C-alpha cells in the first residue's frame, strides 16, 4: 500500500493506493495529484522507515510513502 501525504494548512491530506493488480485507477489518481502539487511549486520526498527522505521529481508508484511539502522561501 502506497501513501501520498500532502502538507497544507489542513495538516496533511492522505491519498492511498494499492500496488497490487487492479488498482491502476488509484495509482493514476495519486500520480495526478502528485503532478498537480509539483506544478504548483511543492517538493516531494520519498520516505521510508529505513532511510532518510529522498527528493523525487516524478511519481514512484512503488514508494512506501511520499510526502509533498509546500514551497518554502527565505524569511
Amino acid at each position, binding site marked *: 500500500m502506497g501513501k501520498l*501525504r500532502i*502538507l*497544507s*494548512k*489542513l*495538516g*496533511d491530506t492522505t491519498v492511498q493506493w494499492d500496488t497490487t493488480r487492479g488498482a491502476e485507477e488509484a495509482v493514476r489518481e495519486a500520480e495526478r495529484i502528485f503532478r498537480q502539487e509539483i506544478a504548483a511549486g511543492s*517538493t516531494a*520526498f520519498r*520516505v521510508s522507515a529505513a532511510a*532518510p*527522505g*529522498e*527528493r523525487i521529481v516524478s511519481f514512484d508508484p512503488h514508494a512506501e510513502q511520499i*510526502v509533498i*511539502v*509546500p*514551497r*518554502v*522561501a*527565505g*524569511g
Partner: protein
Amino acid sequence: MGELLPILAQMLFGLLVVAGLSWSLAHPSHRHNVQPHQAHSEWLAAKARAEHLLMEMLSTEDYQHLARRGYIEVRSPNVPERCYRVPKYRGRIHVYEAGRPVMSLCVQPVHHIPDADVVLIHKLMIEGNEQEYLRIANRFDVTPFRQYL
C-alpha cells in the same frame, strides 16, 4: 477647557481599549494564529494531524528530544560534523559544525501551516535537498555571544 482635556483623553483611551477587546473577541483567529477564514476547530484538527505525522516520521529519540529540548538535530548528508538545530516552533535554524555554531538560517513555508509540519519540512529538505535548502535560506552570522555557547 484645560480641565476637560484629561477627561477627554481618558474617555478616548477607554474607547480604544473597549474597541480592541471587542475586536479580539470577535476574531479568535488573531489570538491563536489561525489563518483568516479558517475555523478555529479546523485549525486545532490540523495541528493535531501535523503532530501525529511528526511523531510518525521522527524516531522515538528525536521526538522525545524535541519535546524535552525544544529542537531536533538533523545531520547534514553532505558535510561531515555539520548539524542543523530545527526548533519546535517557528524561528531560525542554527547550524553547528564540530559542535560550534557557524550560522543561522531563516527559511519557512510560503503558506501558514502547523508548526509540527514546519519541523518535518526542514528535516526532509535538509536530508533530501540540502543544497537547495541552503540556496533558498537567508543566512545570518552567529552573534559573538553565541560563539561562546
